[in-house]
């Protein structure tokens, strides 16, 4: 299982050509991922979500993705055709989005959606799929899987919906999960429960996790390693527990800009942006 990194990305760039010229959403991002929790932090427009989408081949057609190297478990992702992506997505790489409200189909029962995700990638009887779906709902700590199986998405709370979403994404047992702000729409106490579920899945199944978030506190306490993105560029890479000792001025400024419970300040530091960070 431990033969080299799960994912290797070298010089990944994504650019969009719009009416007002070319926007470079991701610029020459290079990173690798083992079976670990990798956090990507940045503010809006930093390209963190676009980078995550590029790994799944989900960049909108107007975007141009280039990379020197992008390989997943030894498989080259750059030359992949649509059909190959289909086989890979969901089965080996999955994605959890920010808001379960918009990612679950509102007119299909939760259980059926989870089961469907399984049957898409595994040949199985409906009884088998149903059993798997119930087990998966149980695995994401949904208290009463039999009941929730028959509910519609609007009948669930935000936290429950997000758990159902994770169940749906994990039932095919992917090797890599990309979570794009999976807890931002949730309350803090629920947020930690969802994080715990993700955490257990990484530890128990040896899955790789890319955790995209704007929240430095969560990323530094949850992930193993952190990439800080600014303007499409990875400006800092460090161990999560060493984030407080970050070197890049942008990371340091971000850390100082967030009001903290422990260290009262009369005035928060304002991030002074330096164009050189983009060079």
């Amino acid at each position: 299982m431990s033969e080299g990194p799960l994912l290797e990305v070298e010089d990944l760039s994504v650019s969009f050509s719009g009416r007002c010229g070319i926007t470079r959403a991701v610029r020459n991002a290079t990173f690798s991922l083992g079976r670990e929790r990798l956090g990507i932090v940045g503010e809006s427009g930093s390209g963190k979500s676009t980078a995550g989408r590029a790994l799944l081949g989900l960049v909108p057609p107007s975007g141009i993705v280039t990379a020197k190297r992008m390989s997943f478990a030894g498989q080259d992702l750059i030359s992949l055709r649509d059909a190959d992506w289909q086989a890979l997505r969901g089965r080996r790489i999955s994605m959890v989005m920010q808001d379960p409200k918009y990612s679950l189909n509102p007119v299909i029962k939760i259980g059926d959606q989870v089961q469907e995700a399984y049957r898409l990638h595994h040949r199985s009887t409906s009884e088998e799929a149903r059993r798997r779906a119930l087990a998966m709902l149980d695995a994401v700590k949904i208290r009463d899987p039999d009941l929730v199986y028959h509910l519609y998405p609007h009948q669930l709370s935000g936290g429950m919906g997000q758990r159902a979403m994770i169940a749906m994404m994990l039932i095919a047992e992917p090797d890599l999960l990309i979570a794009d702000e999976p807890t931002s729409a949730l309350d803090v106490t629920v947020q930690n429960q969802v994080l715990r579920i993700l955490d257990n899945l990484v530890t128990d199944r040896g899955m790789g996790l890319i955790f995209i978030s704007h929240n430095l506190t969560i990323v530094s306490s949850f992930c193993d390693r952190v990439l800080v993105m600014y303007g499409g560029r990875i400006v800092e890479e460090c161990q999560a527990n060493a984030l407080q000792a970050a070197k890049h001025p942008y990371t340091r400024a971000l850390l100082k800009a967030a009001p903290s419970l422990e260290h009262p300040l009369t005035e928060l530091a304002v991030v002074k942006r330096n164009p050189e960070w983009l060079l």
Partner: protein
Amino acid sequence: MIEVHNLSVTFRHGGHTIPAVRGVNFTIVEGETFGIVGESGSGKSTILKAIAGLVKADAPGLKINGQSLGIKRTKSDRHLMQFVFQDPYGSLHPRQTVDDILLEPLLIHGVADAAEKVTIALNDVGLLPLHRFRYPHQLSGGQRQRVAIARALILRPRILLLDEPTSALDVSVQAEILNLISRLRRSYQLTSILVSHDLGVVAHLCSRIAIMQSGRLVEVLDVDSLRRGRAKEAYSLDLLAASRGFSRTPS
């Protein structure tokens, strides 16, 4: 300055009645910034809206400077307190320029020297004259929230109600807006209530903090107890622990 006495708000939705706020009491002295924290559905925003008169309280239980406020607000009640909304994208009229938006309250209340007051208000919140005739969609999120704050302060209210004013903004922009709020609060001697789900933000601005859970006020802490984690109720301790980030060892 503000006395909230046994405030309850019940929403009626179809045949159901949903108690959003149940018997909440607190008082706020002049010049204080009072924080209300809680998770979604705890009724924290509803309290703020009931004080502003945007939602109907079950019974009038609100006193400002010792005077009871009716359920229906008069123009001078409105003059007294203003509101800043959470979402800077939704709180500005999409077809009005910043100038129109800021002039409107002045026109409603028949204030003289309106144009000059707009200039001052823009300057107060750190916007430039070049922003004056822009439409909201031509501004960034932080700039929009500045416009919303300018609109709230242009009538020189005594009380400012802030409903998650920075939760839709990036951390760096949030810092700018929080600094702006604390500066304006000083220079205009505002009494304010800040609602937020972010304990850090509340602790940064407020002297006392109320913790809400499902419509009830759990407890009121001063900022020092909050920072040191000295809460009495179990729920407050949970909330404090959760906001310090993820921990692998469940408490």
